[in-house]
């Protein structure tokens, strides 16, 4: 069994990645690119610390700046393709990065980079998670949030109402890149080594499970999901070796029974517990409906 400290740290790190994916899903696209950016962040941190002798913070700032400037390149094909093809492009990005990193000997090939200084502690992770959650909260409220959700409900209708869906996706591409860099950096600084195998299909699906089970409509859902799934996958002896099956079962059950995840379930329960208030129908609406009926 993994120690609780490890579980808590991993939950926070995966939570950051999950928030990035959740923002995309709120806007109606399943972008898996954040895992690829985690790989970039982890590797950049590894190289900068072990080979160039940079401080972790400097590497993080440089990588975040680069990601904020270049993050939209991965989702540039979104100008041509939508829907499932968009997911395929981002999945392709993740898997291709795995191949590229695995074949560069400077980056250690399939073995990856070892003995990265262990700089991540609880404060780094709490700070990273708080910053990403705050950014996500800012993006999901007010007019920005309404525009994102509108695009998620119906991109065509949102576009006709003046939402620039493509520009939105480019912005979300940059956001996912920056969040991914943060998560990858913290991961490298906590685990101490990075290898191509760490950032592949399995991690993509794990983060997806976290977002869906927690609740894809809210960044809080992403954090709850990350905590729950990390604890379940690492925290119990009797589940060791069954993590994939358990995660898959959680995902299927969520999609079948409460597609809005834990957040959706809680909202529904709270709604049921509150006493039903009968709102008297205003007289004016009777008048107007009768009038329109006669015309």
């Amino acid at each position, binding site marked *: 069994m993994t120690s609780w400290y490890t579980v808590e740290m991993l939950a926070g790190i995966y939570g950051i990645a999950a928030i990035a994916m959740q923002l995309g899903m709120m806007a*109606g696209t*399943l972008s898996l690119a954040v895992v690829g950016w985690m790989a970039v962040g982890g590797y950049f941190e590894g190289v900068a610390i072990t080979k160039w002798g940079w401080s972790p913070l400097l590497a993080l700032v440089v990588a975040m700046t680069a990601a904020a400037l270049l993050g939209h390149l991965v989702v540039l*094909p979104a100008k*041509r*393709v939508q*829907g*499932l*093809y968009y*997911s*395929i*492009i981002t999945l*392709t990005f993740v*898997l*291709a990065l795995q*191949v*590229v990193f*695995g*074949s560069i000997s400077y980056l250690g090939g399939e073995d990856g980079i070892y003995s990265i200084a262990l700089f991540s502690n609880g404060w780094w992770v709490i700070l990273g998670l708080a910053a990403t959650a705050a950014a996500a909260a800012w993006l999901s409220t007010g007019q920005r949030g309404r525009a994102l959700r509108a695009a998620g409900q*119906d*991109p065509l209708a949102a576009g006709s109402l003046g939402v620039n869906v493509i520009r939105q996706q480019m912005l979300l591409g940059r956001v996912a890149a920056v969040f991914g860099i943060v998560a990858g950096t913290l991961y490298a600084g906590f685990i101490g080594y990075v290898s191509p195998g760490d950032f592949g*299909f399995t991690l993509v*699906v794990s983060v*997806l*499970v976290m977002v*869906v089970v927690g609740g894809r409509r809210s960044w809080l859902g992403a954090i709850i999901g990350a905590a729950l799934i990390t604890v379940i996958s690492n925290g119990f002896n009797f589940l060791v*070796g*069954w*993590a*994939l*099956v*358990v*995660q*898959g*079962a*959680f*995902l*299927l059950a969520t*999609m*079948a*029974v409460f*597609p809005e995840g834990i957040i959706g379930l809680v909202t529904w329960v709270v709604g049921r517990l509150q006493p039903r208030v009968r709102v008297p129908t205003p007289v004016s609406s009777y008048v107007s409906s009768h009038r329109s009926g006669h015309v």
Partner: protein
Amino acid sequence: MNGTLVAQQVVNGIVTGSVEALFALGLTISWGVLKILNLAQAQIFTMAALAAVYVGDHTGLPLWAVVIAAVLAGGLLAVAGDAVAFWPLRRQRLDTHAMELNSLITSFGLALILTGIAEKVTDSNIVRLPQRLYSVHLLHVGGVSLTNVQLTVVVASVVLSVAVWWAIGHTRAGTAIRALAYLPEMTQMAGVNVSRLTRGAFFLCGALAGCAAVLLSMLLNAVDATFGTDILLQAIAIIVIAGSGRILGALAAGLLLGIVEDVGSLYWPANIGNLVPFVLIAVVLLIRPTGLFGQPVTSRA
């Protein structure tokens, strides 16, 4: 570069490409007709191969019976997967956009469960079909050599692809399947039992995966838990190149991909070769998102 060597690599490319095309066939039918990009197809493929190995090890049945067992295993697994994963989604009556996204997410879950089971079953070991099922001979055709297994794989893949293409274009069930892809509600109104047809389509996709699984495990002589995932990316590339729902297009794209990968491996290092499917996916999606072989079949019943 030596001409014979190139010809040999073309032959090898046709062999790998044809079995990848057969695997992609189930995936493209599922996407084109049922509007479900079922990533769990890769794990259904793996489980069918494991079923074939199990039947081969524990019974004295001949090869054709093992193939039938794998086809049944794949088909039934696909139908069971539909019952636990996709049927609950269809009950929620979502719009097309949400349904596509939600079925993709759900298929990730199904893939996880089946991967976990495959890892438990194989205990992370490599298993093989027993040698008694088939023997390997080397054939020489004009300077190019290939084995009887390779020849069987190519012939079986081409025959199956053409048969499926013909069945969908020319039989009553095929007409119903095309109608289902085009207008599901009208198909129901026209008296087709849509839920039975959907189950049938799932069975077909799984059965094709099962057949491809036996062929590939004969070809590679090794099956492990990531058996199907290893060619999932090639299959997605094939579908993107061909356009979703294009059956003969998938065959052509599969052969093309196989030849490009194997002939190219003469000229570039192996790890660069691994990037070929990614590059093809990106280029085709940017230049011609509907695939090289025209509009998806779904838009014209």
